[in-house]
């Protein structure tokens, strides 16, 4: 690594550093920022490299909540409703109608080499279809080989007749998770373990060993680069030995384009076991890999009706599921807080956030303040809960679900009174909370600018306004995809803003997110990123 200093000149540098919010020049040496300022820096460091002369630089985007599965899942072809960028950079057009979906699947089917190979695809989401594609539509793709679509949430599948036949599913043995048509025939849609297991057992499970796949992690890195992300969380990982080895090796590759912050899943571990793992994992850390945090999942998702809510879902679906006994979840939070371990707590429903706030109130009373833990998603927290979180010194992350599921939340899950109050970023900021906003890829695509656009404009996919009282400013939104998540990951000492001493991580944009019309933020192009002083964009 060269320690000579390079001075870059940009159209503008948005720093997120209160001491100097805006600049045009940044000097970089040894992968770190040496100085930030204006043309006067040319006197000290010589003439500036004009690489970014036309670009706007921001701190490298930090994705506070995504999953490396985003890279792993691209091993299967994408057939979702919305257009999506493949990690390699090409656009995969959305399949916006059943016809389009069937046409795409037919093309994929022709490319399969083996006669009996199953055709798998992912990303399909039934909520965007009036007439959902069903078994019969997939039969039009193939009547001789199994065809299986993973829904975008990966918990449901839709299968063709061959796949159902091989799994032994027919109208005579229908169970809860096997959906049927008006005539009582299975329509191909299958939900949950009991219904999905026989199918994947019969046709093979293509994402069985996905977590150990180095190609998947490399694709995840590429997805980050496309979206302008220089640091991302991988917020739920078993971190078994093969996974740790693979992460350590792949992130250390010279051209791996992002820093990864994996969080250990507490599933099936005792607090003691978690402490032991967290004590040894940071030995593997290097400049692009940061072990040490822990993820606790308390409930499910709101669109899947598995979030724990205080008031019933409006369509009569029973309350969601706890991921562990509430008392054990609380004990885990208290024990790990006492052990000074950084916690990311998945809370979607407001009963889950209530349980968590109660646990931290007790934990802090017992052990005093320690790390600032993060409430992830926090979608239904109201003013009172947000106030409480602020008092406890917690950090909140909000989802971009206002866009993707806002309509559905209003019409089908929590109803028109609660839905516009969800993801209450404005209320959180007013309560004094540090916030971040996230994508939760592969649940929604990687894209901090799009996530920021969601928080600024609060429109749903159908274009409806969705609780405009919770809109935040473009500046606040940009902070919530840079410094905010850096703080949430405990990495704000080295990333999150353009300030002397920090790592030279920048995102180069083709326009200025603070100067374009707020409605246009999502259309700003990402030119590439600088990671530790190294330019890695420039298609």
């Amino acid at each position, binding site marked *: 690594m060269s320690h000579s200093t390079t001075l870059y000149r940009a159209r503008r540098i948005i720093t997120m550093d209160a001491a100097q919010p805006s600049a045009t020049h940044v000097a970089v040496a040894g992968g770190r920022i040496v100085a930030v300022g204006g043309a006067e820096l040319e006197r000290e460091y010589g003439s500036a490299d004009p690489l970014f002369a036309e670009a706007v630089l921001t701190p490298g985007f930090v994705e506070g909540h995504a999953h490396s599965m985003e890279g792993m899942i691209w091993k299967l072809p994408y057939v979702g409703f919305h257009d999506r960028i493949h990690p390699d950079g090409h656009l995969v057009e959305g399949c916006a109608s059943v016809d389009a979906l069937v046409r795409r699947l037919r093309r994929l089917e022709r490319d399969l080499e083996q006669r009996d190979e199953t055709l798998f695809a992912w990303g399909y989401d039934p909520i965007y279809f009036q007439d959902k594609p069903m078994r019969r539509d997939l039969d039009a793709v193939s009547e001789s080989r199994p065809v299986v679509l993973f829904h975008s949430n990966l918990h449901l599948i839709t299968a063709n007749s061959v796949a159902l036949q*091989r*799994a*032994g*599913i027919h109208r005579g*043995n*229908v*169970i*809860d*998770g*096997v959906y049927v048509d008006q005539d009582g025939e299975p329509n191909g849609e299958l939900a*949950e*373990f*009991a*219904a*999905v*297991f*026989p199918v*994947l*057992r019969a046709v093979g*499970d293509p994402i*069985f060993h996905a977590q150990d796949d180095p190609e998947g992690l490399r694709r995840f890195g590429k997805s980050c680069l496309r979206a302008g992300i220089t640091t991302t969380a991988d917020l739920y990982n*078993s971190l078994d030995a093969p996974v740790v080895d693979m992460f350590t090796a792949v992130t250390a590759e010279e051209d791996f384009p992002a820093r990864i912050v994996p969080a250990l*899943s507490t*599933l*099936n571990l*005792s607090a003691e076991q978690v402490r032991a793992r967290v004590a040894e994992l940071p030995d593997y850390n290097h400049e692009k890999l940061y072990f040490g945090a822990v993820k606790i999942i308390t409930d499910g998702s709101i669109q899947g009706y598995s979030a724990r809510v205080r008031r019933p879902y409006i369509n009569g679906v*029973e*309350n969601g*599921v*706890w*991921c*562990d*006994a*509430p*008392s*054990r979840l609380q004990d885990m939070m208290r024990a790990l807080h006492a052990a000074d371990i950084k916690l990311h707590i998945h809370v979607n429903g407001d*009963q889950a956030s209530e*349980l968590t706030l109660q646990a931290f109130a007790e934990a802090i009373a017992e052990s005093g303040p320690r790390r600032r833990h993060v409430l992830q998603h926090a979608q239904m927290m109201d003013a009172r809960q947000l106030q409480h979180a602020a008092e406890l010194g917690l950090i909140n992350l909000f989802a971009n679900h206002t866009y993707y599921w806002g309509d559905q939340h209003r019409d089908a899950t929590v109803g028109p009174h609660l839905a516009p109050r969800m993801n209450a970023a404005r209320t959180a900021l007013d309560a004094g909370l540090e916030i971040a906003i996230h994508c939760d890829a592969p649940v929604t695509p990687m894209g901090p600018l799009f996530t920021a656009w969601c928080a600024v404009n609060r429109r749903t996919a159908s274009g409806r306004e969705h609780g405009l009282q919770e809109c935040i400013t473009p500046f606040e939104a940009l902070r919530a995809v840079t410094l905010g998540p850096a703080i949430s990951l405990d990495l704000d000492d080295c990333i999150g803003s353009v300030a002397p001493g920090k790592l030279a991580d920048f995102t180069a944009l083709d326009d200025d997110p603070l100067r374009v019309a707020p409605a246009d933020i999502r259309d700003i192009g990402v030119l590439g990123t600088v990671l530790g002083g190294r330019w890695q964009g420039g298609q």
Partner: protein
Amino acid sequence: MKPARPAPPFSVVGGFLGAGKTTLLNRLLADPQAPRCAVLVNDFGDIAVDQALIQSHGGETIAMQNGCICCTIGDDLARGIATVLDLAARPEHIVVEASGVAHPGRVAEVARISPELAPGGVFVLADAGAIGEQLQDQWIADTVDRQLQSAGHILVSKLEPLPPHHQAGVIDLLSRRYPSASLSTTAEVQWAHLLEQARDRRRGAPPAAAHARFVARTLRSTAPVDVRKLAHWLEHSRDVYRMKGWAVDRADGRVKLIQAVGRRLNIAPCEADIEGLVAIVIGNPRLPAAADIVRVIGARESAD
């Protein structure tokens, strides 16, 4: 396609945290009468079987001397089940421990559609000392209720240490709220019990099928009972293994605790807040239906 092999019964043991699932599974694993079974548990940490009974201990599998194996599920139940189904010596019975917050009925449904598994019943444990509060708890009431709703068989654990009136209250509560489940105590459960459930479920026959070895009846009445008649019936029935119940005696209006093991009978006055009769009877498949027993002993109303 997989070659056709006999589909092992698939039983699910559920119940909230602390209900005693591990204690029960430990006992079943160590049972010399056990079939060649696979028990899938959430965590080895809790499995505490006598070292002398263990043949070998691998990473995710413990092999027992009696031919049973015990495997951890990890974070993927599908993988766990696939692993035991692919063993060269496919187990004769698969028992899965559902996590304390899982919906055991939903898990068990897989056996209704998978050609590789046969239904083996849903057993849900209830901690006698805690269940009343759990069913009122702000966080977990609905979860616990959902689990019990899905039970084919409710197993009451930790009943004995409770005072008699409290025991009666628990049995009464559970038999009223979940009338379609049969009810017994964990202490009574043997492999025979699980196997019998499995056979019945497979044929869709009622629990009293001909070669079942073990059935449970819950007796309830809102009117006082002739305790002498009850005692007489217990002493002369060849079909009763055990019985435990509380009855308001028509003779003197007092509440009696009635316990029977085989022909040994014990009747003692006690404090219990009941109207007429609450009892569990465990016996062989010739045991009459609950309504018939209640009629014989001269009470008025019943539920099984």
